């Protein structure tokens, strides 16, 4: 039977931004505001109200249906609302408008880690999570051994999870989410962390889950993973759905969002960041130099010019970037610290950094670049898929379809 197990209609979520965003208010503020209210002039009040109403729609007008047993990839740029959608579907937060219908037990793995209680042991947390998704103790017990084996935690199952390493924590979280008998599995970006072996293992398990007839909703930036796992993909854009259909349709739509406008020269100031990034240090723009006809000639050095501002004084700043293929395979990274050229910046300072890779030897194709900046060991700004560039295929024999690299070569002749 294939009836929709998830159906969403005109789903939307509005967040308040501005003054009320940084978490909680103190009671004093609220009381003072209330006390002041009668004495506030009319215009003043109206101004305040409008500033209070500063909101953004993280998600809007999202309509889709997911059938039982489908493995749906959810893709889209940062800020398109992928995580918000999963949070709504897992009932952590309420939508502002529209509704969604879900038939079946929902297990979710949102961001890193799930609902673990640090003081409790791994064993106890497995039962805790079983209870959370509504399983009886006996039902959880049936899957217990498999979870422990998957997470490779046999020796540590009676250790409080607060003593676990990040890797152990993550393995347990994934094991719990994948093995507990939820009918619908929501997975958000688990593959962004963990080592390669673990990622492979997780992908394999998600495949198993899908084959067993359970429905999987899978958020990822890893296009290769989406293409290999999913039977269908939805590409979100701010304010709606960009594409919904076959994986290749959605992935192409996603890639087209990457190449639109002039992505080789991007204004980065207004791009949404994950929490905490961009506050002490913010990339303003990124531009590849030496671009001819919007392409960089083969074998010319990559020259990336980054403008930034630093609201806070920072020391030992290193800016860097990672280059990815369009299907999100990581090719290489480089940063200022590689050549010991970190710098200090004063509060309120602005500047430009130019990074040059003399010989990247990239094959003619389009590439996506993530940017980051760190001060010492703490990351201060990070932008995924911030800018793209294309290496010109000019002069290359059309039948030599290089994948990733086209090294510069030298030839000698004895004729």
């Amino acid at each position, binding site marked *: 039977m294939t009836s929709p197990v998830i159906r969403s209609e005109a789903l939307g979520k509005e*967040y308040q931004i501005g003054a009320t965003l940084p*978490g*909680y*208010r*103190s*009671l*004093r503020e*609220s009381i003072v505001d209330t006390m002041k209210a009668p004495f506030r002039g009319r215009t003043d009040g109206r101004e305040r109200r409008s500033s209070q109403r500063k909101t953004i729609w993280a998600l809007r007008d999202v309509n889709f249906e997911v059938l039982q047993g489908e493995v749906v990839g959810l893709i889209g740029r940062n800020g398109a609302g992928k995580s918000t959608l999963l*949070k*709504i*579907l*897992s*009932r*952590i*937060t*309420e*939508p*502002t*408008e*529209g*509704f*969604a*219908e*879900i*038939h*079946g*037990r*929902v297990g*979710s793995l*949102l*961001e890193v*880690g*799930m*609902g*673990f*209680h*640090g*003081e*409790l042991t791994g064993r*106890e947390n497995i*039962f*805790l*999570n079983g*209870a*959370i*998704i*509504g*399983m*009886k*103790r006996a039902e959880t017990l049936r899957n217990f051994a498999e979870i422990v084996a998957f997470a490779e935690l046999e020796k540590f199952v009676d250790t409080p999870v607060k003593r676990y390493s990040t890797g152990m924590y993550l393995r347990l979280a994934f094991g719990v989410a994948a093995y507990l008998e939820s*009918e619908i599995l929501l997975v958000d970006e688990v593959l962004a962390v963990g080592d390669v072996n673990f990622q492979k293992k997780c992908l394999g398990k998600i495949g198993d889950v899908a084959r067993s007839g359970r429905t999987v909703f899978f958020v990822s930036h890893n296009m290769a993973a989406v293409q290999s796992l999913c039977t269908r993909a939805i590409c979100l854009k701010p304010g709606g759905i960009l594409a919904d259909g076959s994986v290749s349709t959605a992935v192409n739509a996603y890639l087209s969002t990457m190449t639109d406008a002039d992505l080789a020269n991007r204004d980065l100031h207004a791009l949404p960041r994950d929490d905490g990034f961009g506050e002490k240090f913010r990339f303003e723009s990124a531009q590849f130099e030496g671009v001819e006809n919007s392409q960089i000639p083969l074998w010319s050095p990559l020259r990336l010019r980054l403008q930034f501002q630093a609201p806070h004084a920072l020391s030992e700043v290193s800016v860097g970037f990672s280059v990815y293929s369009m299907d999100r395979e990581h090719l290489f990274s480089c940063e200022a610290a590689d050549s010991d050229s970190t710098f200090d910046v004063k509060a309120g300072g602005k500047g430009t950094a130019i990074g040059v890779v003399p010989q990247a030897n990239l094959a003619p194709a389009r590439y996506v670049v993530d940017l980051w900046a760190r001060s010492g060991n703490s990351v201060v700004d990070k932008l995924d898929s911030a800018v793209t560039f294309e290496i010109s295929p000019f002069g290359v024999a059309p039948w030599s379809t290089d994948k990733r690299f086209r090294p510069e070569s030298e030839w000698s002749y004895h004729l």
Partner: protein
Amino acid sequence: MSSITHPAQPTQSLIIRPSRGWTALQLKDVWQYRELLYFLIWSEVKVRYKQTLLGAAWAVLQPLTSMIVFTIFFSRIAGISSDGLPYPLFSYAGLLAWTFTSDAVSKASGSLVGSSGLLTKVYFPRLILPGASILSGLVDFGIAFLLLIVLMAYYGIWPTLAILCLPLFLLMAIGVSLGFGLWLSALNVKYRDVRYVVPFFIQLWLFVTPVIYPTARATAKLRELGIPTWVYGLNPMAGVVEGFRWSLLGSGQPGSLVLTSSIVTVVLLLGGAFYFRGMEKTFADVI
């Protein structure tokens, strides 16, 4: 809320939509998640005495030391009367109800903020968190109760039939705890001032509750001022403590006092529950 499509595989169906205004309490939802409630109660009990030297002995030590200090200072030095009962027994019976409730209120008020990891990662009826904090205190209560039995045997005081009402008064203590717990835990998500207010509030609350002194002494003074007895019951703990002493030791008489306290408890509980439900939808966004 749930529909059974196939006997072997019960499927839960749910509709996610913005809730408007004061939504229904959804106690049914809590019932569905009872397994989680049991689990959280159990884990809270376990966690409480983990990495402690004395373990569950703390459950007895707290009221016991209070009783000793009260006996020395309020009975011996200040000469406060005790309804004709031995003062240690008199104060311990009151402390039993008081310790349970004050611990429950302070734990419940921090329960949501303390579990923000759970709150932002998984769904379950949020009511379960303060609920589990409060109910887990029953274990401590049970342990502390054993000492009361010893004390009663020592002083040769046997309970009357009134002891059958004890569960009702315990239920009332739970109601008071939950009433305050719901208000404070939900407020705490938005206003962290709560964590500074609660210890102070509990300290003051002890003085207006007849734990140290007999109710009769307070109500007599109030009558002199022309204030009827029931007014003292506006502090719901006055009714609870009085009820505990009456059902356990047969002292005093509950009456208008307990009636007022019961009404206050119900109002507090309903108000708290509705406030909590109204705020619940924003917890994960605000915390």
